[in-house]
């Protein structure tokens, strides 16, 4: 859903970042507008996951240069919880288990944190319960999910669905999906993808991080970026993903090298 006049949701310029003493991001540029779906593909160690966690504010990463603007605001100055409340959502590759806290309570606390930020009254358990049930259907999740502890004993697919359920409640402006497809069988993938597609509007944007072209059959991107060595090497449409699948990343590297030589 590309519309040149849409609001710029995320703008990343010359971003460099370290974890410990190692530089992971080496001058990353990216612009995402409302309504767009972007996919970042790349081999292991290219910095994809680092980038997604950095956007959400993970404390392990130190930004050493460049800027990240989210809807006109300097994202890098915001605490992780403020980013979340302002509309950045990261669906985790490995969602954490929190034994002892029911999924329902967790979802309500999270939802109400955002309501509070927006100056709205917090929802009580009764009203929240009604709301959450409408979202459950979207992910074909059973109500029994709600009374279980957060992610405890969930299968891989259940954990990923639970992430998207959280996204469905928080309605972010930017949904970052970090390998939401990894470890899922095709049925689970379809359910997750279908949930994501239904959350798409012309006001929000999605950034997917993935290894596999397969995901892009179900969530069709407007842009595909190939990342390696902490930078985006090339950008294309969804056809780029097919080319990668067929020819591997080596081909992109050669193109890049040729480009630099010229």
């Amino acid at each position, binding site marked *: 859903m590309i519309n040149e006049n849409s609001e710029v949701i995320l703008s990343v310029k010359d971003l460099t970042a370290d974890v410990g003493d190692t530089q992971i991001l080496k001058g990353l540029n990216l612009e995402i507008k409302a309504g767009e779906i972007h996919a970042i593909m790349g081999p292991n160690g290219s910095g994809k996951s680092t980038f997604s966690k950095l956007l959400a504010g993970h404390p392990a990463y130190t930004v050493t240069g460049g800027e990240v603007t989210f809807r006109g605001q300097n994202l890098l100055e915001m605490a992780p*919880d403020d980013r979340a409340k302002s509309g950045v959502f990261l669906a985790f590759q490995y969602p954490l288990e929190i034994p002892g806290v029911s999924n329902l309570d967790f979802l309500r606390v999270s939802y109400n944190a955002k309501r509070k*930020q927006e100056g709205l009254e917090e929802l009580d358990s009764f009203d929240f319960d009604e709301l959450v049930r409408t979202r459950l259907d979207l992910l074909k999740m059973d109500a029994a999910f709600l009374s279980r502890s957060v992610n405890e004993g969930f299968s891989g697919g259940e954990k990923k669905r639970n992430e998207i359920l959280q996204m469905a409640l928080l309605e972010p402006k930017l949904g970052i999906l970090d390998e939401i497809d990894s470890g899922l069988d095709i049925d689970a993938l379809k359910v997750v993808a279908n949930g994501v597609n239904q959350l798409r509007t012309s006001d929000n944007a999605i950034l997917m991080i993935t290894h596999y072209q397969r995901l892009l059959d179900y969530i069709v991107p407007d842009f595909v970026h190939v990342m390696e060595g902490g930078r985006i090497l090339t950008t294309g449409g969804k056809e780029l993903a097919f080319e990668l699948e067929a020819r591997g990343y080596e081909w992109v590297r050669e193109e890049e090298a040729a480009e630099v030589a010229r």
Partner: protein
Amino acid sequence: MTVEVSTSTDTTEPTLKARVDRSAYLAGLLKLRPELPEELAELQGVRDRALAIAQELAIPTTRDEEWRFTDLSSLVHIGFALPDRASISFAQIESFILPEAVNSRLVFVDGTYAPDLSATDDLPEGVLVTNLSVAVQFLPSLHNYLAKQQGAEEVFTALNTASLIDGAIVHVPKNQHVETPIQILFVSTAGVATIAHPRCLVIAESGSSLTLVEEFVSIADGGYFTNAVTEIAIAENAQVNHTRVQRESETAFHIGKTAVSQARDSRYSCSAISLGAKIARHNLEVYQTGEQTQTTLNGLTMINGEQVGDTHSKIAFTKPYGTSDQVQKCIVGDRAHAIFNGKVSVPQAAQLTNAAQLSRNLLLSPRARIDTKPQLEITADNVKCAHGATVSQLEDDEVFYLQSRGLNPEEARKLLTYAFAIEIINHIPVASLKANLTTIIRTQQL
């Protein structure tokens, strides 16, 4: 660890620096013993025997292995006195009364029975829930149980027994099932530097069952000393579900003993929650005396500031087919210090014992401290005994996950701490108490 002189940095009590003769100090506490009421004259022997034991002892130092980590220097510098007889109104304790036990409760104020605040109308006929002076008239078997548990020669237990003037008595006859929880509330009126010796005796005859809630609370802050002893005798095939909540003033001293004996096929389950007191010590001792006996111990210590919270448990197996399942959790913030010592004794005769012990600890501050020690003494050769201990902090990744869902760091830490604690609270069988404690833990300042 041979330091006896107090290392406390509490500058408000300069006298702490001085050494104290700890047997003379104990003798002073024994001199304070209140007179035995006339109607309890037949218990003179019980008191005298305990007095004779106590007179040979002293308040322990950190050189005593059992008190290695819990320094009582700040206690032995206080000249305690007996509390004045306080008269308090129902309104002052109403919030502590469990709705489920509104007519099955005993209230003790500074160790003394308060009949006006107690009510026992809801209990089945034949079940006795009363104080000591009534029980001596109606329960001849009392003498077989009072001060008869093992461990009576321990110094604070002997001090309590030697000072006996009152107590809560619960007697459930054979095959009687008491559905209503029985609440024993020990209230301190928090006089500064007063000492009380709350006492409780529970007798579950064979095939009976009951749910007991013991709570230690205060209605004001003060540097008082509670030295409590509870004895629980569980006959064959009987069941006792016990919840013990210690919520003393954070300037108080609490030393408590729970001594349980279990006959064959009996079941004892205890949830011990320790939140209060400046220095708290709980000795929880279970003696299995028959075959196929089940013991379940769940403990939670949650302390902050400069609190010390010490749990010493002991499960003694003596016969085959016994089982025990123990989980102790400690959450320690600020400069607080939690101690857990879990002894499990499996002698040669206790074949086919199945014992599990887990000590899980959460440190919330770099200056908080945990000392945890499993102590397994196993001589039987065909048994299953598992134990484990973990000490952890809240992980950055956990806090980040919650922050990424909009919770601020403090809320995130509170929720994770609550999640750590709630497993223990969930074992408590009384809904209102469970809800109460859940709220306390959920809103605890970290």
